[in-house]
């Protein structure tokens, strides 16, 4: 058996294509050329002085741009090009599952980033001779950057399944600006005391880094799973496992943070809940009987669980309500200290309402649009834009009434909480959360009927199986 037979077919294909692609070759050669020039420049200096730390900063800066910006950006067309070229259909017909397709694409890009990382190591050894090196911290930092790169690549690969070029473009621009800032900050890290974070000497630092790795791992998994769920055939139910894993993940991650800080536990829960909720609220509601089979086998309990765990935005609303209940449980476990601060309380409840609000708008005005995820994100961005405009307007005119007038838009209510009255914002937040959960549930009779029909068809399949036995 060939060595390549041990690898995923997708990885073999992507590596074959990726290593020949202009994108990687240019990036690789340009980075090497830049690093050689930097080394020559620093070596020819009259006195090394503090040049070791500056050299570290420069090396890390270039590395960050390569792996945090350029490599993830290469993933933004990973799935869309396959969908557009109709090759995704051909792959789905093979033994490759949707997850293996997306995972293979991600591993290929991360392997290329690893190659770039490996080529940086000789320069780091040379940098050692310039003095002032915090060996462990700098290597830890590089690993963290590599890990963040893998996460961002997963995010772009997963997001590349979204059909809207405009949305992908917006995400690229916003993400790109953010990453560039991070890269330049990274370049200056070695000169500051921030590098101490990466020496693992303090328990707070260890918690912070572990949280970072945990969140990165979660975002990587969720992003890839999102991409897989877009390209997967209907019979391949990716939603239920994702929803199921979500509950214990939120609970364990939050509980792990309680020893550090109660509010950090709530923050961790919200970091995990928001992407879980967004994916649950933007799913295609079409069900096939095969998906219902495992639930129908469990009779009544299965049917009840199905109302939360079946794919689709309607069950997603109930899932978000369950996540809200879970958050309250976590809050109770902190001795109600996690949401003790009114600002935090208002923010959390408003975030839940703002997750549901775009779905309400979608159901009322854009229900014919097939691209639920794109529409949802567009509405969410638009509501945040409106909130910012109203906030600026109220600040410049000193008219608080403007904000209260539009407090039914959740992001506006968040500004009301920050700037005006926490208590009222909390009440408004709860009312809007309940209202925005009820509206889509009430307006989705057809979806619930479709779920019942699918369950009925699944029962028929079960009965046939039993009679055949």
């Amino acid at each position: 058996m060939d060595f390549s037979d041990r690898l995923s077919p997708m990885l073999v294909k992507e590596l074959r294509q990726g290593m020949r692609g202009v994108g990687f070759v240019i990036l690789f050669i340009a980075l090497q050329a830049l690093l050689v020039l930097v080394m020559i420049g620093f070596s020819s200096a009259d006195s090394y002085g503090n040049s070791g730390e500056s050299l570290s900063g420069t090396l890390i800066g270039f590395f960050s741009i390569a792996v945090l910006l350029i490599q993830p950006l290469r993933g933004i067309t990973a799935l869309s090009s396959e969908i557009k070229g109709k090759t995704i259909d051909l792959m789905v017909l093979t033994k490759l599952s949707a997850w293996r397709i997306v995972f293979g694409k991600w591993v290929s890009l991360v392997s290329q980033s690893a190659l770039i990382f490996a080529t940086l190591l000789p320069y780091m050894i040379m940098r050692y001779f310039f003095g002032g090196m915090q060996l462990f911290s700098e290597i830890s930092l590089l690993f963290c950057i590599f890990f963040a790169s893998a996460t961002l690549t997963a995010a772009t690969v997963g997001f590349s399944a979204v059909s809207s070029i405009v949305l992908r473009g917006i995400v690229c621009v916003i993400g790109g600006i953010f990453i560039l800032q991070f890269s330049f900050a990274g370049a200056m890290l070695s000169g500051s005391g921030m590098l101490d974070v990466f020496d693992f000497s303090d328990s707070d630092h260890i918690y912070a880094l572990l949280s970072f790795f945990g969140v990165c791992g979660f975002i990587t998994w969720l992003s890839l799973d999102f991409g897989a769920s877009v390209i997967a055939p209907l019979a391949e139910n990716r939603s239920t496992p994702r929803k199921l894993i979500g509950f214990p993940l939120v609970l364990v991650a939050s509980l792990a943070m309680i020893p550090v800080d109660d509010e950090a536990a709530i923050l961790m829960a919200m970091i995990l809940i928001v992407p879980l909720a967004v994916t649950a609220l933007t799913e295609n509601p079409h069900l096939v009987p095969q998906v219902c089979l495992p639930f129908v086998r469990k009779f009544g309990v299965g049917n009840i669980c199905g109302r939360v765990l079946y794919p689709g935005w309607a069950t997603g609303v109930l899932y978000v309500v369950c996540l809200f209940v879970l958050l309250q449980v976590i809050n109770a476990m902190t001795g109600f200290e996690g949401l003790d601060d009114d600002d935090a309380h208002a923010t959390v409840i408003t975030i839940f309402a703002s997750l549901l609000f775009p779905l309400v708008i979608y159901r009322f005005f854009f229900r014919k649009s097939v691209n639920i995820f794109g529409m949802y994100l567009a509405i969410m961005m638009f509501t945040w834009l409106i909130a910012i405009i109203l906030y600026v307007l109220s600040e410049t005119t000193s008219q608080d009434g403007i904000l209260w007038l539009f407090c039914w838009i959740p992001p506006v209510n968040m500004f009301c909480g920050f700037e005006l009255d926490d208590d009222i914002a909390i009440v408004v937040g709860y009312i809007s959360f309940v209202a925005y959960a009820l509206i889509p549930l009430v307006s989705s009779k057809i979806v619930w009927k479709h779920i019942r029909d699918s369950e009925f068809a699944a029962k028929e399949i079960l009965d046939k199986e039993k009679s055949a036995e």
Partner: protein
Amino acid sequence: MPAISVKNLTRHFGALKAVDDLSFEVPRGSVCGFVGANGAGKTTTMRILASLDYATSGIVKICGHNVINAPAEVRSLIGWMPDDFGNYDHMTVIEYLDFYARALGYKGKERQMRVQEVMEFADLSNLSDRMSNKLSKGMTQRLCLGRSLLHDPEVLIMDEPAAGLDPKSRVELKNLIRILAEEGKTILISSHILSELGEMCDSLLFIDGGKIVHHGDAESLRQGLDAKAGSYYDVQVLGDAMEVANWAVTSPYVEFIEERKRGGRIRIESNEAEQAAIVLQRMIKDGLSVTEFHKEQRNLEDAFIDILGQIEGGNGPQTTPPPLPPQAAVATAE
């Protein structure tokens, strides 16, 4: 058990009924032509058969396996050749086939052998190192056919495989399909080129507006079981070819079917030779310099148009002569 079984298949896209209560069966080892105008529902039906789309209602089975409940089994049984598929950048023909062979679960020497067999069958051996995105349309279709045969499927679903091919590539593809049919594969093939389908297919399935309008073999269709009576003639004249069209407009029992280089194709509403003689006499009398006048067999296009015409109006073919030039129109009015 039929290779393909479709019962009451319906597929809605919002308010649009792309497929409307479609039912048919294709026996094992037969070649079935799937015919219809653009937007008739052919591709939607074929995608559902290939487990790439889902039905709003109805049951679709491939060799007894339901496409919804057993997609994995169905996929191992079918070879799917879409009407349009993108190629990969930076990938040679052999790497392209190698990737799909890996994806289908072939390993080591078995994979290499399978790829070689397919390349030989599709005549791709001399193209193995060519970039797959730099192939001609004909070569691309052969590559696509090769890919769909990698796992030796029982059923082949081919959506417009001959679209955009030059005559030579079309003949090559037709020969490959003929070999596959002789090997006993069940083939469902859609095409606009009805004459080719007629030669290849055991049965033809005509679809319009998402509904089946005819299902039968090519010969019965040509004989005109459902068609209007009449016979078809090729008429060639000296001078302007449009003279035939203009003349046909004013002539009873004659219908202009299509324009040709030196005249046109007409239908005489009778099968009697006497009637044809009368028409010819009248042509000459009316000043047409007829150089050729011979009877043609009713082809599949005629049959298809007849069927569509019967459905749309209930009064026969909807073919209309081209608009008259201004002078002829004046003459007709006079």
